[in-house]
Every structure is written in structure tokens, then in C-alpha cells.
């Protein structure tokens, strides 16, 4: 399975709050960022955590978010970013 996104693509993190061992932090859910790089395919840690094999592998991305977008009263530069590694099933085109 190859990834759906390429560097530079705008993506939105889905805003959902399922129970379980999730590797997407709350603060970034629902936020919009840009694919910084494609990191490759990895067994899904959300499945591995419960003893499943994590297959099929999922594509992992590094997504870059502007801090001013993530935090309403962020004190810093427009160019400040937070880069978060996010699995494809958490991302939608934006």
C-alpha cells in the first residue's frame, strides 16, 4: 500500500475520540497542516498495543502545523511549527 499524500499536501487530522491506545495527541485532532515528508510504512501501533499484528502496515507521515493555528494565543513567530508523526488513517485531504 502506498501513501495517499505527498510532501506539500494540505491535510486535516480527523477529529474523533475513540478509546484505546491512540498515537495521535488530542491537541492536534481537527487541525490542518502540511505533509512534511512520508516516513514509510509501519505496523499500526494502535493494533500492536493489543497484541494484534498491526497489519496491513500503515503509511506514516510527518505533518507540519503552524503553532499559531494550533494554539489560539501562541506566543511566538508565524513561522514556528510543531511537527507531528501521524498515521494515514488519521488524515484527510484539506
Amino acid at each position, binding site marked *: 500500500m502506498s501513501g495517499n499524500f505527498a510532501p506539500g499536501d494540505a491535510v486535516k487530522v480527523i477529529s474523533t475520540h475513540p478509546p484505546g491506545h491512540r*498515537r*495521535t*495527541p488530542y*491537541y*492536534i485532532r481537527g487541525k490542518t497542516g502540511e505533509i512534511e515528508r512520508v*516516513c*514509510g510504512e*509501519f505496523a499500526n*501501533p494502535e493494533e500492536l*498495543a493489543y497484541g494484534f499484528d498491526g497489519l496491513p502496515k500503515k503509511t*506514516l507521515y*510527518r505533518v507540519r502545523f503552524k*503553532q499559531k493555528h494550533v*494554539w489560539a494565543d*501562541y*506566543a*511566538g*513567530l508565524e*513561522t*514556528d*511549527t*510543531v*511537527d*507531528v*508523526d*501521524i*498515521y494515514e488513517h488519521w488524515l484527510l485531504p484539506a
Partner: protein
Amino acid sequence: MADERGTHDHDHDHNHDHDHDLTFQPNIEDGEPGRYELMTYAIRELVMEKGHLTPEELRAAQEKVESLQKSDGAKIIAKAWTDPEFKQRLLEDGNAALAEVGVDAGAAKMTVVENTDDVQNVVVCTLCSCYPRAVLGMPPDWYRSKSYRSRVVIEPRKVLSEFGTDVPDDMTVRVHDSLADLRYLVIPRRPEGTEGWSEEQLAAIVTRDTMVGVANPSVS
């Protein structure tokens, strides 16, 4: 992640609030074992009993992790500073470049980021304590603290200043939240005044915290 939790890795702080009341050196076992410690002991016993892991295998694994305290990070950074092609390879494929110098970064994807005149990078794991242990050894207590993990992503400039690192107003701060399968290593800026230094000399000024990005190397 299971392997990110040592037996004492609870969310509360053992040492900071009450040490001054003690008149003796506490033993690590002095406290009542917590729920997670008891669970760890129970699981360890079960795993041994069922033959999945021998005591020797456990000991050897612990020894390996703990002996990593002497980190390879500084020599890797010194090499990157003096060998631009190696630095480029590190930035492009951290695992492969580390393997060149005999460091096995394991299954995690080593992601190497570079501090420049315009950018300061800083690394955190807001969910637990993901840390490039293969390169830097065990994470410092502050890295695992709730305070660092929750604050550095929201107010990185303030947190960095509390570490004594004032980021200039025109320098971009990039926070890297290391959550699942990536592990980060920061290549610090090589300070002025180190021209012509040997790799050994350079390695001596590269400390752990400069490779996490909360400090910058300096020539004293």
C-alpha cells in the same frame, strides 16, 4: 508503550517535593510498590514461568539499555560537523548513516533535524517518553516529566528560556512531537571559535541536552 515504562516511571514525581525532609539516603525500594510496579512484577514472573524470556535474557537486555548511558551522540554530531556528506546522509536516512558508524537504531525511524542560523529544533514526546535511546541512552527525568511534555509544545520559547536557552525573536522554533515510530536527533549549530577543531574536541562540547534541542553547545 510497554517498553517506555520502567518500574519507577509513574506520572508523579518521586524526588522533587520531599527530599529535603530526608536525613538519610533513601533506597529505591523504600516506597510502597505502586499498582504499575506490582503489575510489572507479575507480568515478569509470568513471562519467565511460561518460558518466553529467561532471567539471563532479561538481565542482558537491561544491561544493554543501561550501558547506553554513555552515548554515541556526541561523536556522531562531531562527525556530522566535520563531514558534510555524512551530515547529508544523516538528514536523509538517519538509520543508514548511524549504521555506518556502528550504531543500530533499531526499528524506529531515526529522524535527524538540523539547527541552523534561522531554526531551533526541540524534541518532545507528548504522549509518553519516546526518546532516541539507541543513540542517547535513557531519557532524562525532565524529558519524562508531565511539565515538559505538556508545556514545550505550547510555549516552547518559554520552556527553552527556563533551560537557559533564549531563542532570538527572529529565529523559528520547530517542536518535534515524537509519538510512535519516529525518534529524533538534533544536530546543534556548530559554535563559532571551533574552526579547525578535531572531532574529539568537538564531541566534548556536544552534550545530551543539545541533541534534544533544549540547549546549544558553547565554547567556554
